[in-house]
C-alpha cells in the first residue's frame, strides 16, 4: 500500500462522510416505544419475567421454591422408607430414591456444619471463612496482574 495515497483517501472519504449529519428517524418510532412502555407498565407482575418482579416477591418466591423442594425431598425420603406400601406406592417410592438421596446428603451436610460449629467454636469458623475469602481475593488479584502484564502486551504485539 502507498501510505501517502491512503492518507489522502482517508481524508477525502472522511470529509464526505462527516458532511452527512444525522438521518431523520421515522416519526412513528417514538410512538412505538411509548406504546411498548405503556403495555409493559400495564402488564401485571405475575405475567412479567421473574427478573422484573418486585424484590420482595423475588425473595418470597425463591424461599417458597426452596421450601417446596425441601418438602418434596423429605416426603420422598419418608415414602422410600415406609414399611407398609401398596404395589403402586412401591413403584412411586422407586422414583423417589433420588429425592431420598438428596435429603440424606442435605442432612449429613447440616449435621456436619452443626458439629463443626459446636466443636471448633465460632472464632475458628469465622477465621477459616476469612482465610477462604482472602485466598479467593489473592487468586483474583494474581490472575489480574498476570493478565495485565503477560497476556495484554502479547495480544498488542500480535496485532
Amino acid at each position: 500500500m502507498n501510505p501517502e495515497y491512503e492518507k489522502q483517501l482517508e481524508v477525502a472519504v472522511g470529509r464526505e462522510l462527516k458532511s452527512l449529519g444525522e438521518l431523520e428517524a421515522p416519526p412513528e418510532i417514538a410512538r412505538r416505544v411509548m406504546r411498548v412502555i405503556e403495555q409493559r407498565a400495564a402488564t401485571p407482575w405475575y405475567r412479567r419475567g421473574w427478573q422484573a418482579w418486585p424484590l420482595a416477591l423475588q425473595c418470597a418466591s425463591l424461599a417458597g421454591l426452596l421450601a417446596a423442594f425441601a418438602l418434596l425431598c423429605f416426603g420422598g425420603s419418608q415414602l422410600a422408607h415406609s414399611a407398609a406400601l401398596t404395589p403402586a406406592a412401591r413403584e412411586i417410592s422407586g422414583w423417589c430414591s433420588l429425592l431420598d438421596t438428596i435429603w440424606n446428603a442435605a442432612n449429613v451436610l447440616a449435621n456436619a456444619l452443626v458439629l463443626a460449629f459446636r466443636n471448633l467454636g465460632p472464632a475458628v469458623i469465622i477465621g477459616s471463612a476469612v482465610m477462604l475469602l482472602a485466598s479467593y481475593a489473592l487468586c483474583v488479584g494474581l490472575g489480574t496482574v498476570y493478565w495485565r502484564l503477560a497476556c495484554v502486551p502479547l495480544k498488542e504485539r500480535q496485532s
Partner: protein
Amino acid sequence: MTNAQQFETLMRNHQNMVFSTAMRLLANQPDAEDVTQETFLRAYERFEQLRDSPTVSGWLKTVATNLSLNHLSRYRSRWSFFSELLGSSREENEGREVEFPASETVTETLDAADRRALVEQALQKLPAAQRVPLVLFHFEDLAYEEIAAKLGVSLGKVKTDIFRGREALRRQLQLRLMDEPAEAATST
C-alpha cells in the same frame, strides 16, 4: 412534567442520532428501527440514572452500536469469509452494483442535499464487511485496534476492509486525489 413526558423529550432529542447509528451500521431500515426501539426501551429501564447524566448521548450511541453489532454478528462469519475469499475482485463488481450518475459533471453540479443522499446511498450499498469498520472509524471515531477488538477480527483485516470500503466509495463518488497510484485498487 411527568416521568413519561421527560423520557419522551429525551427520546425526541436523541432519536435521530440513535437511528443514524443503527441505520449506517445495518443498512436496513426495519432492523435499524428495531434497534432504535430496543435502545430506548433499555434507556427507559435506567431512566433514573440517565435523566440528569451528561453522558446520556454517549450511552445511547454505545448501546445502539452494540445492539447493531449483535444483530450483525449472526452474519459475521459469513461476511468475514466472503470478504477474505473474494478480495479485490469483488469490489470491482460492487462498484457496478450501485446506480450513480455516470458523468463527473453531474456529480459536481449536485447540490449539497443531493450529494449527501448520494454518499449515504453509496455507504449503504457497501457490503457489511467494509461498511461496518468504515462507520466505526469515521462516525464512532474508533481506532483500528478498537474496531478489531469490537468485531473480533484481526487488525490486518480491519485495515484491508476499511481501505477497500474507501476505495469503493472513491470510485462511486468519483473523488479525485492528487496522488493516485495505478496499483491503488489492487494493492491490498
